[in-house]
């Protein structure tokens, strides 16, 4: 089994090519496509960014040819609307000035710029924005007090860009024939994440009140603690979005629902939505991850709060993992599927494993190690885990081999296999030595998982006392017997892939890497595509997102399908170079902080998911009883096809389009009501009737919304009764503000017990009138 030397040769080849390129770049040599001769850049040119160098060089070329700048095709190309440069010839046509960011050695040198012909517009310390005539650029660059020059770019904020590219701006403006603008009013955006900088202006109202209607913090105390609205308003809630998670939750929430109060360029998808937030990490500084149980409990908390607030809710989960069956049957996913319904929708990120070979699937064969197929397994730490799932009918054994990296021609250890119903626990010791390689566990006890009936094998390697670091050896998983299976490498480990491998070697891939809970059956799963490739940092420097092509899938975006064959993700949204709210508790790198501060650039399906979350909030504003299935169907049907045949396991149904989705979101025509005289009419026909009590949808499966208008601030009693007149549930008993009221009923009685199918009576009592309506609960 001499495959390893080939692998090392392939990898070494990449390293050599990379080094040559780096050396060329370090030398300052110019490398341009099609250029036969090259000269080294001057010291002044090296201080300029590429855009400025290009402008100066093309101006020089125009002068040599005696062409006016406007008539020079190569210079004129920099002036067009598609140019990223803020180049305007609006003052002196012979020697136009450019807007240039200048970084000086110290702030005292600004006066020197003026002497060189520059006009200083703004100065902040050593950073200056100046207008500099083209002819004076090089003299300025040659000045010893000048460290760097960067041409001012014409740029759009990235979040603003993704709003436009996804069609959200049109929806927020009520364009495209929509009956009104939709900005998320009356809808709750819930987020469970690392934490939130709830003090950020974008999460406060124009009146400087918190937009959060509640916050639960699992890092407080043994079981978490809640911050109420008063604490959030007065900025006395102790919760922070600590540096351990790079301000993830703040960023995600800003995408879904930031209102751009700090900077109107960075408006999120649903800027008028109310917010609920759960800090799901149990560390105040946001180090670590999320427990399945806390995810379930946190989501349940938000749903209960939404019920009390009487608003529909969409919850964002920009989190996940690969441990589990990948078929939607994990208990976490079963919980989430059970939680959703009309007016209650969950959106999850697909995962960021699109570049990582963590998955292997093939048909097992052979009777022992020598006749088996195997996959190399590279560990990155002292623990490695593989989770293997197969149909219960599969008849296979799973074993482990270990290779010495310095002589990988033959294994130094081969474990026996574990077959169905067996548990192997052994300490691996290298043949003929006392070198302890690690403690191995192959747990194949689960022959029929209670949730999906499948076989499950857990393989685990741990460092043994007195043993080597397992990451320094090469591990391999081999399988005997028959049957198809899928396995995932966890804890940072990989199944490496390389060309020229022998036939018995099965490399890893990134198929079926949509994580959990992305594989849940009733939640919306979002991959990432590129809507922007550049941004301007806080120093005015144009930064470029690596490996990003406009409209292409993000390389990191996890691929489907689910293990049970469902196409995933459902669709994609903007997930690269996204600028959104920056937590005050995370010291981001300057290159990732957007010009003006308070916002930072991040990327991931974590960023794609809240774009869809916000769009769903807009859809819920249009139809508060929208179901998750309908939301998914509308978003799929209106998506811009991409990735070949539709659907596919890269883009799903394509790139989401918010305007088309809102146009495709029907008014709730299944909403009916009785007028005071008893006539049954559609809700939209009755909407103008004060004190009309509406309920929709009806029949309901257990999630029903009421709607009535309180003409003034008044005391209201709304309760449900069975046909024997027994009160089932009191929904409102108190004073409500004037305006539209939309309380919900989840189908439970006062004690939280699910009520059986049947006919119920809702009665609304106000000081001036009593209204009632019959409902049908059909479970």
């Amino acid at each position, binding site marked *: 089994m001499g495959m390893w030397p080939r692998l090392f040769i392939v990898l070494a080849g990449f390293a050599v090519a990379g080094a040559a390129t780096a050396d060329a770049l370090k030398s300052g040599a110019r490398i341009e496509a099609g250029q036969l001769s090259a000269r080294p850049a001057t010291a002044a040119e090296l201080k300029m960014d590429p855009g400025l160098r290009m402008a100066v060089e093309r101006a020089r070329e125009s002068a040599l040819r005696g062409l006016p700048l406007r008539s020079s095709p190569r210079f004129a190309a920099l002036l067009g609307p598609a140019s990223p440069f803020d180049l305007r010839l609006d003052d002196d046509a012979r020697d136009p000035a450019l807007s240039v960011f200048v970084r000086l050695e110290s702030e005292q040198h600004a006066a020197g710029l003026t002497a060189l012909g520059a006009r200083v517009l703004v100065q902040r310390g050593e950073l200056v924005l100046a207008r500099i005539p083209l002819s004076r650029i090089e003299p300025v660059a040659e000045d010893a007090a000048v460290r760097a020059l960067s041409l001012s770019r014409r740029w759009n904020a990235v979040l603003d860009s993704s709003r436009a590219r996804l069609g959200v701006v049109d929806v927020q403006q009520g364009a495209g024939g929509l009956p009104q603008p939709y900005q998320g009013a009356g809808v709750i955006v819930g987020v469970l994440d690392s934490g939130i900088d709830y003090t950020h202006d974008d999460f406060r109202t124009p009146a400087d009140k918190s937009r959060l209607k509640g916050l639960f913090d699992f890092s407080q105390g043994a079981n978490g603690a809640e911050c109420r609205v008063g604490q959030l308003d007065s900025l006395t809630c102790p919760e922070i979005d600590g540096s351990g998670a790079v301000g993830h939750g703040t960023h995600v929430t800003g995408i879904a629902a930031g209102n751009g109060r700090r900077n109107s360029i960075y408006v999120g998808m649903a800027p008028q939505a109310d917010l609920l937030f759960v800090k799901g990490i149990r560390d105040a500084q946001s180090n*670590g991850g999320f427990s399945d149980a806390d995810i379930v409990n946190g989501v349940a908390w938000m749903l209960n709060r939404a019920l009390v607030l009487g608003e529909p809710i969409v919850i964002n989960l920009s989190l996940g993992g690969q441990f589990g069956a990948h078929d939607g049957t994990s*208990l976490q996913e079963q919980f989430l599927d059970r*939680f959703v319904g009309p007016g209650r929708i969950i959106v999850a990120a697909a995962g960021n494993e699109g570049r990582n070979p963590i998955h292997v699937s093939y048909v097992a064969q052979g009777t022992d190690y020598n006749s088996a197929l195997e996959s190399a397994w590279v560990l990155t730490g002292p623990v490695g885990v593989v989770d293997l799932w197969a149909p219960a009918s599969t008849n296979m054994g799973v074993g482990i081999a270990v290779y010495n990296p310095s002589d990988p021609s033959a294994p130094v250890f081969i474990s026996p296999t574990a077959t169905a119903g067996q548990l192997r626990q052994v300490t691996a010791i290298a043949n003929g030595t006392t070198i302890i390689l690690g403690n191995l566990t192959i747990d194949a006890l689960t022959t029929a998982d209670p949730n999906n009936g499948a076989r499950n*094998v857990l393989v685990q390697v741990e460092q043994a006392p007195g043993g080597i670091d397992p990451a320094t050896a090469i591990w391999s998983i081999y399988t005997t017997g028959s049957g198809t299976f899928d396995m995932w490498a966890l804890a940072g480990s990989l199944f490496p892939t390389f060309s020229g491998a022998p036939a018995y070697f099965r490399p890893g891939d990134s198929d079926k890497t949509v994580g959990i809970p992305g594989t849940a059956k009733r939640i919306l799963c979002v991959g990432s595509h590129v809507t922007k490739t550049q941004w301007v940092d806080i120093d005015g420097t144009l930064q470029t997102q690596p490996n990003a092509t406009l409209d292409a899938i993000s390389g990191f975006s996890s691929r489907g399908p689910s293990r049970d064959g469902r196409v995933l993700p459902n669709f994609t949204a903007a997930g690269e170079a996204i600028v959104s709210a920056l937590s005050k508790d995370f010291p981001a790198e300057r290159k990732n902080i957007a010009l003006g501060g308070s916002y930072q650039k991040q*990327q991931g399906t974590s960023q794609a998911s809240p774009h869809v979350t916000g769009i769903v909030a807009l859809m819920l504003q249009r139809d508060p009883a929208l179901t998750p299935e309908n939301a998914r169907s509308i978003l799929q049907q209106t998506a811009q096809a991409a990735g070949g045949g539709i659907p596919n396991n890269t883009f799903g149904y394509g790139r989401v389009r918010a305007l088309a989705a809102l146009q495709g979101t029907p008014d709730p025509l299944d909403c009916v009501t009785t007028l005071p005289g008893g006539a049954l009419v559609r809700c939209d026909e009755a909407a103008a009737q004060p004190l009309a009590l509406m309920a929709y949808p009806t029949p309901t499966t257990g999630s029903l919304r009421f709607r009535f208008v309180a003409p003034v601030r008044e005391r209201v009693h709304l309760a449900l009764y069975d046909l024997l007149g027994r009160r089932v549930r009191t929904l409102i008993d108190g004073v409500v503000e004037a305006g539209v009221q939309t309380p919900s009923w989840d189908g439970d009685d006062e004690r939280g017990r699910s009520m059986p199918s049947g006919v119920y009576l809702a009665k609304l009592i106000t000081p001036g009138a009593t209204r009632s309506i019959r409902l049908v609960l059909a479970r």
Partner: protein
Amino acid sequence: MLLIVAGMACGCRDADVKAIESKCDAPLRQQAEGMARAGETGAIEVLGRADGPIDAARMHRLAEAGADLSQVTDELFTARIPARRLGNVARLEFVKSLQLSQERGLLKP
């Protein structure tokens, strides 16, 4: 070997061992076993599923068996269970599945 390992997890009877093997997922079994080996007596966070809705009587039985319930939705529940009492909970006839509460991460590339 199998009975010894599983028995270490709960320190109890063969019936518990069989229940753990058939109802607990592999990560939960390994977690319980690891805690037993290390002499740890703490609680394990789990997600569980019963064969039907969990009513007050079932909640009472789960609590008696050692489950500190957090969330109950129809037949699903989350709970903390002392490692040594895992077998008690798994042995309840209406409990069909117990899974270790896994840690999930933020989705940053």
